[in-house]
């Protein structure tokens, strides 16, 4: 009896995790999938999500890589503070993130008057979607990249330096290729998180079709009218999530093979 219990518990856990996904896939016939994806709600959400997540990923790489590099190279109180700050958005509830974004960039927010004077209004625009995605997803990348940079052998960088390599060459020829696994994993996780962003986007950017209605918001909206696009988009998102996992898994396998002499 005691030996069976853990097995039953494990099977129950599997069932809880698998049943919803199975239900989603089983309830969506192939024809329904095509119909659902042709729905105007689905098309515009797909387009918007693709645009906003690639923009936020680009910004994450552009701004997050130097931060991760700095964090890895300068351990100390400032780095620890930055590290904590970077981890916060991962654990803060999305609704709180949305409110915080509003209080920072809203018309009456902290930077509202400043943005107003420049003639910019952020809330309820596509830019707000990008900002919300950046806020919730960049931490995944920065953490992963910084961890990879920390693992670098200092001597390799000093050898490169003794061979005449300046900062850019040391980074792009030595540091980045040797940290590629952590960097790619971080980028993929961060992108997946941005794609799934719901709460902060809803609060800070609203739910306007074609402007701020991303995939998760479109699924939520479709639920009230037509279930087909909701199901079709959900299946697409599960497939994308699976693809990301497989890509990362394959990366790990490749890494292991390469590491063998």
């Amino acid at each position, binding site marked *: 009896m005691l030996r069976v219990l853990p097995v039953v518990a494990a099977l129950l856990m599997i069932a809880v995790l698998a049943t919803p996904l199975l239900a989603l896939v089983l309830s969506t016939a192939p024809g329904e999938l095509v119909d659902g994806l042709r729905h105007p709600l689905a098309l515009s959400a797909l387009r918007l999500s693709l645009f906003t997540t690639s923009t936020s990923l680009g910004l994450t790489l552009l701004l997050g890589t130097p931060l991760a590099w700095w964090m890895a190279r300068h351990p100390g109180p400032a780095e620890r503070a930055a590290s904590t700050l970077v981890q916060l958005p991962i654990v803060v509830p999305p609704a709180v993130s949305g409110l915080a974004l509003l209080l920072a960039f809203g018309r009456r927010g902290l930077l509202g008057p400043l943005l107003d004077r420049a003639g910019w209004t952020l809330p309820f625009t596509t830019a707000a979607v990008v900002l919300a995605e950046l806020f919730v997803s960049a931490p995944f990348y920065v953490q992963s990249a910084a961890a990879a940079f920390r693992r670098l*052998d200092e*001597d*390799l960088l*000093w*050898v*490169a*330096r*003794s*061979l*005449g*390599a*300046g900062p850019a060459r040391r980074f792009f*020829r*030595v540091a980045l*290729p*040797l940290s590629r696994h952590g960097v790619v994993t971080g980028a993929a996780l961060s992108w997946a998180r941005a794609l799934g962003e719901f709460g902060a986007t809803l609060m800070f950017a609203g739910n306007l079709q074609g402007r701020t209605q991303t995939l998760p918001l479109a699924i939520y909206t479709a639920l009230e009218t037509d279930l087909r696009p909701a199901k079709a988009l959900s299946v697409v998102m599960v497939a994308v999530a699976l693809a990301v996992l497989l890509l990362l898994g394959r990366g790990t396998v490749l890494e292991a093979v390469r*590491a*063998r*002499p």
Partner: protein
Amino acid sequence: MLDLELEVVRDGFVLEVSLSFSVGPTALVGPNGAGKSTLLRAILGAVPVRRGHIVLDGRTLLDTRRGMSVPGEERCVGWVPQEYALFPHLSVLENTCFGRAGAAGRARAGAVLDQLGLASLASRRPGALSGGERQKVALARALAAEPRALLLDEPLAALDADTRETTRGLLVDTLRRLAIPSLVVTHEMRDVLALGGPVVLLEAGRVRSTASPEGFCASPPSEFARALVKGYVQLT
């Protein structure tokens, strides 16, 4: 010609030396923690120097009084660290021409690999090399960048006894032929004698003595030196 006077303070350890190295190999010996690796890293620019200067072939690399310090990438000082630190993602040829880009760099790297008998390994990754081969590639990589001085941190220590014997000959030959000063940190009297150049004994962050290998053997200047020489005599 490499002239230096340095005071380095690191986690309570003080290295205070004044040394001059002429063309050819110099052996750097001393107990663990005497400051040998720290000295090499200070010349490289990898550890902060509190006070002093470094002059290489008349070019000042560091002068704390004037607040000047040439960045590591412009010092023209080659380095072969203890575990060689080959770039694992680059081939032997790519490792070797890392310091010199372009066709001229590749040609130079090819020539150095040829000279050290490594031409057949050019397309291999460091992971597929033996210990002795790695050591030679690390040396080739440093030489291909045409340094004005060369620093080697226990270049043979990571090798098994047999490989060490065969690799030593090539290393010593190469260093003696070079028209630049080379500093070789070692724990082996055999290396000291093979190199044939002056022996600097470093103890507790200070230069205890500078001698010829023969003088060092004839009258070892310290307890550590006596043990080093005795260990060698017992072996032979």
